[in-house]
């Protein structure tokens, strides 16, 4: 696994995402509730681009008329057929044994720590005063 510095944390707005080409794969990094998550940008079902997914809540209902919204923003709803996935590990909510989106470890590190390396050389300069999103692929 190689650690790639993909962006400054401020490059990905809260509630938004950004796609990066890393080792031939399109990887989408989501910024949800202050955390970052990296997933392959393709739904395992028919390949839809997950950058267009809706970040929804996990909706459960113990009985008719009562429902709970939990983990708001942490479920990805595919832009095509509406399959839902856990943003933390890519696991399908509908059929968790068979389907998941490939997910990648993400870290946020300061520019100062990054000076120590080793990291894949990036096309933009790393400043000690900023924080960066690191994706392991």
């Amino acid at each position, binding site marked *: 696994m190689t650690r790639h510095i993909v962006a400054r944390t401020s490059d990905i707005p809260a509630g938004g995402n950004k796609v990066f080409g890393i*080792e*031939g*794969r*399109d990887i989408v990094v989501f910024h949800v509730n202050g955390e970052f998550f990296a997933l*392959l940008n*393709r*739904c*395992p*079902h*028919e*390949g*839809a*681009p997950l*950058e*267009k*997914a*809706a970040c929804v809540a996990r909706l459960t209902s113990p009985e008719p008329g009562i429902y709970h919204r939990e983990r708001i923003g942490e479920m990805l709803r595919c*832009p*095509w*057929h*509406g399959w839902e996935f856990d943003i933390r590990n890519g696991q399908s909510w509908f059929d968790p*044994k*068979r*389907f*998941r*989106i*490939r997910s990648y470890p993400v870290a946020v590190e300061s520019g100062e720590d990054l000076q120590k390396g080793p990291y894949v050389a990036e096309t933009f300069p790393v400043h000690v005063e900023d924080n960066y999103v690191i994706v392991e692929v």
Partner: protein
Amino acid sequence: MSDVIDRPMRDEDRTAQTRLKIIDCDIHPSLRSHNDLNEFLPKRWQQHLKEYGSHLRTPYIGTTPYPRSSPLIARRDAWPPTGGVPGSDLDFMRKQHLDPFDVEYGILQVLDLFIFSQQNLEFGAAIQRAINDWQLAFWAHRDVRLKASILVGQDDTALGIAEIDRCAKTGEYIQINVSPRANEPLGRRRYWPIYARAQELDLPLGIHVGGYGGHAPTGGGWPSYYCEEHQSNAHTVASQLTSLVLEGIPERFPRLKIVFIEGGFGWIPSAMWRMDQHFERFRSEVPHLKRKPSEYVKDHFWFTTQPIDEPDEAKHLRSLIEWVGIDRLLFSSDYPHWDYDDARYAFKTPLTEAERRKIFNSNARAVYKF
């Protein structure tokens, strides 16, 4: 087992380098707004559309009987960056669908203003003229890959025939579309003049799911949910196949080709087996049938593939394809709707190169004479 599409995207997946060109039998263009029709619509009907709107059997003007799963039943990524609704921007349609999938021909299926189910039949006739003209002007004339269908509200057969004749003169339309949710089952005598004309003109009859015929969309009554109504597309098409076959349409119009669009195909084997069984027992009731119902299906009907059935085991999809007959299937994507099928991944069972060629291209080429 975990199914993950995690290999790097191949170049040929990204760009139009696939060797097999696709004929997509179900693409939905949309009006940017009703104003797009003004140049094709007499003042009187423009005014009518503004003042009264479109009158379908729906709860309120501009609604559908069942709230859909996504706005305008569209893929979330199909909203053009230039604004407007999904399917309304040709350049974006090219960029997102026609070019990357190497679509050789795309057959337009217009659902705007659902002309088949307009309650005011004269308004419906005016709108169908306008929509048919708009298909050429806004789509087919701007991209040679896109092919228009003659939309016909079949419940006024005379106006329908007049519209077929008007459009057919241009030589630019490739099929005649009617709705599977009309006032009566499609095999009924009142609709025969349309089939006679379609046969005369050698234009296939296309039947795309949907519509508001006033009947419950299932034999059991009105569904509660969109999920349930969506399921009923297959029942509706199954009942129309039964009606067309048992009323003897293929016997009466032996050169008529009939294409069911967006009804899927998983239900067809059972429908054929059952019709054959009944035919064996009750053939004296339907003496106009000279052959087994399944033989008519296998000679006169075609089915588009989307939304494809997804059995847990790939080999079951394979069996379904064999039971229906590989020659009967025409690939369709349903772009830009939410239940779109991606040509690369929709068939989750191996197909030989020859089989792929049939489903994705040559079957449709033969039906539509491309």
